[in-house]
């Protein structure tokens, strides 16, 4: 269901203001979405003044600096810090991306950081991605092949292998799915760009033997056809992939098969 307004318990309030204590001349204001599950209050936006002279280049560095030097209570996910694990996906400056690959110099004015959109917040910048993982499981993202002899390589032509380019690189960071308005309104039924790209990755794999079953499974008014080519997914993808094109390819396969 389309619900434009946030529920009453999700309305964002003004939070605390952390003034700079270093006396630096090069200050930037960083507004961060905060929600503490322990006190029953509404989410708030805390503002931090950060000394940019001693801050490395990425948004994740900025968050680390705030956590280490200003406010240790702030919570966010991060791991590899170079765009491989997909843990630090969040909404920065109104667009989803990975905090570890997004330079804060690209953001003009105050830096606004929110959790990924339209998720149940667990704490601060951490959203609940369980629905997405369940949907990912539902497309059975593993090779289905009846060949018994596993002692040899499963060969694939160069041409067939190249069909997986632009698909296998997906790190499941959920930037695309949570940028999609269709997924916001129908996230419980519509699979969303990330999962559909993964579904297509197995449909198009020449080594997989269940292409037809896979296609049949995904061919659903709600699961697939809620995609209206809004293209927020492709705009958001931090790995430069094209989920919109993958979804269109599934639609095309269904229309021509």
């Amino acid at each position, binding site marked *: 269901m389309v619900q434009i307004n*946030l529920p009453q318990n*999700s309305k964002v309030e003004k939070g605390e203001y952390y003034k700079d204590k270093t006396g630096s001349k090069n200050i930037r204001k960083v507004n961060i979405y905060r929600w503490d599950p322990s006190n029953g209050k509404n989410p708030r936006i805390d503002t931090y003044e950060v000394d940019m002279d001693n801050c490395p280049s990425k948004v994740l560095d900025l968050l680390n600096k705030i956590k280490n030097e200003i406010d240790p209570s702030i919570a966010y996910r991060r791991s590899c810090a170079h765009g491989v694990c997909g843990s630090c996906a969040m*909404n920065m400056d109104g667009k989803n991306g990975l905090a570890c690959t997004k330079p804060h110099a690209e953001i003009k004015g105050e830096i606004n950081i929110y959790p990924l959109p339209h998720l149940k917040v667990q704490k601060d910048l951490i959203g609940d991605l*369980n629905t997405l993982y369940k949907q990912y499981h539902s497309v059975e993202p593993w090779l289905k092949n009846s060949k018994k002899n596993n002692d040899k390589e499963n060969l694939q032509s160069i041409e067939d292998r190249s069909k997986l380019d632009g698909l296998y690189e997906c790190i499941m960071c959920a930037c695309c799915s949570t940028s999609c308005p269709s997924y916001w309104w129908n996230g419980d039924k519509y699979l969303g760009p990330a999962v559909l790209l993964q579904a297509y990755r197995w449909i198009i794999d020449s080594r997989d033997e269940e292409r037809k079953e896979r296609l049949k499974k995904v061919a659903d008014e709600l699961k697939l056809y809620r995609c209206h080519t809004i*293209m927020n997914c*492709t705009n958001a993808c931090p790995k430069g992939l094209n989920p919109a094109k993958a979804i269109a390819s599934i639609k*095309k396969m269904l229309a021509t098969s």
Partner: protein
Amino acid sequence: MKDNNPLSPHIQIYNWHISSLVSICHRITGIINIAIITLICFWVALLLLGNSNYELIQNFFGTFFGKFIIIGTVWSFSFQILSEIRHLFWDLGLGFELKTSNITGLIVIFGSFILTIFIFILGKGFVL
């Protein structure tokens, strides 16, 4: 998940892109067009009841508000046509690269106004 966990902000904070803007306009103009076609059908049906009805509607379209409705309708149809052509190419699997889709999106937005002016000038010779 407990019910008291808040929902993170979505449309309130998300940036608009060319593609999302064209997409929502495509929907809105689609709805407007259905309403307009229905109204035109009623208008034609009214003509069966005599020429006084024709004059009533003719006078309405002569007013400033009436003219605004006509031009708005022409724009709405222009936008829908161009955007639909873009969708047809997408259905063929073409034009999904970010750069291409941004350019075609801009063509739809500016093209709809150019087409409106073109149709208006063309129609002026016949109608008004």
